[in-house]
C-alpha cells in the first residue's frame, strides 16, 4: 500500500465523520429533537474565583477610589465604600456570590436587573431591582440601551439553579455597550432564602 493512499484514507474517513457529525447535529436542531448544539458556541460565564474579592486599591474607574494617602491624623476616615467588592470590566460577565451581592445591595452600589418573566418579577424580586425579561431583551435592543446604570456596576440574576438567562442578558447588555456586569447565579431563590430585602410590587422595566 502506498503512503499516498493512507493519506487519502485519513482524509476520507475524517471527512465522512465530520459530515455525519454536522448532519446529525442539523437533524437534532430540527423539530422537537433535543440533541442539537448551536453551531457557534456561546461563551458562558467565566467565573473569576466565584466570589468577588474585596476591593483592591487602584482598580478601574468604577472601582472605589483608593483612600488618599495622608499623614494628617485629622484626615477624614476612608469612606465605607472602600470595603465594597469591585465588579471589574473584563468585557464579559463575571460571577458574583451572595455575600458580595449583599454588600453591594446594602450600599446601593449596583443596579440590579431581574431577567425573569414579568409575572415572576411581580411575585417577588430583589428590592430595587428592575425587570428586564430575557425574551424582551433579545428582541428589543432599545430596552437594553435604556438601562441607565448611573455609573454603577450591573448585577443580573434570574431564578437560580440551572437558570442561565441572566448570563444571556448580561451578554446582551455588554453588546449594547454596558460595562462592569456581574451575574448572580444564586438568583432570587437564594436571596429570598437568605432573608434579604424583597419587593413584591410590579416595578417599571
Amino acid at each position: 500500500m502506498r503512503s499516498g493512499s493512507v493519506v487519502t484514507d485519513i482524509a476520507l474517513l475524517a471527512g465522512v465523520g465530520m459530515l455525519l457529525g454536522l448532519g446529525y447535529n442539523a437533524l437534532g436542531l430540527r423539530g422537537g429533537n433535543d440533541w442539537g448544539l448551536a453551531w457557534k458556541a456561546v461563551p458562558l460565564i467565566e467565573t473569576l474565583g466565584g466570589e468577588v474579592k474585596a476591593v483592591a486599591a487602584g482598580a478601574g474607574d468604577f472601582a472605589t477610589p483608593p483612600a488618599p494617602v495622608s499623614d494628617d491624623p485629622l484626615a477624614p476616615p476612608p469612606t465605607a465604600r472602600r470595603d465594597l467588592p469591585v465588579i471589574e470590566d473584563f468585557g464579559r460577565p463575571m460571577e458574583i456570590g451572595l455575600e458580595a451581592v449583599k454588600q453591594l445591595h446594602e450600599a446601593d452600589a449596583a443596579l440590579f436587573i431581574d431577567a425573569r418573566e414579568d409575572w415572576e418579577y411581580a411575585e417577588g424580586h430583589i428590592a430595587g431591582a428592575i425587570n428586564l425579561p430575557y425574551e424582551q431583551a433579545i428582541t428589543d435592543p432599545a430596552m437594553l440601551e435604556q438601562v441607565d446604570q448611573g455609573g454603577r456596576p450591573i448585577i443580573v440574576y434570574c431564578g437560580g439553579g440551572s437558570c442561565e438567562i441572566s448570563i444571556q442578558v448580561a451578554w446582551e447588555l455588554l453588546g449594547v455597550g454596558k460595562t462592569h456586569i456581574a451575574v448572580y447565579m444564586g438568583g432570587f431563590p437564594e436571596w429570598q432564602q437568605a432573608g434579604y430585602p424583597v419587593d413584591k410590587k410590579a416595578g417599571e422595566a
Partner: protein
Amino acid sequence: MKTLIEKLSHPLLVRLAGIAIGLVFVVAGLAKIGDMSTFATQVHNFRLTPVALENLVAMTLPWIEVVAGTALILGVRRRGAAWICAGLMVVFTLAVGQAAARGLDFECGCFGKGDASTVGVKKLIENVGLTVVALIATLRRRS
C-alpha cells in the same frame, strides 16, 4: 528498532490491536454522541479550542471516532483509520497532560458522561498505552 517493528507487525497482532482500539473508539464516540451538550462542556473545560469552535468540535469529533473505529474493526481502509486513532490519541494525551499540568481538575469526558474518571496521571498512563496500541495498528502487516 527495526526488529522490534518487524516483531510488532505480525499480522495477527496488528489486526487485534486494530480491533481493540477500534472498539475503544466506537464506544467512546457513541457515549459522547449520546450526550453532546455535556461533551461540549467538557471540550470547554480543556480550554484548548476557541470558545466559538467548541460546539463544532463537540459535534464532529465523536463521529470521526466512530467512523475511524468502525473502519478499524472491519479492516476497511485500515491504516488510514489507525492513523486517525493514533493521531487523536496523541491529541487526547496532550490535552489531558496540559490540563493536569495546569492543575485543572474535571471529568475528562473521554467516554462521555458516565465516565467519572478525571484528568490526571492515571488517565495519562492509560492514554499513552492506548496510543501505543493505536500505533501498532498502523503498521503494515508483515507478509
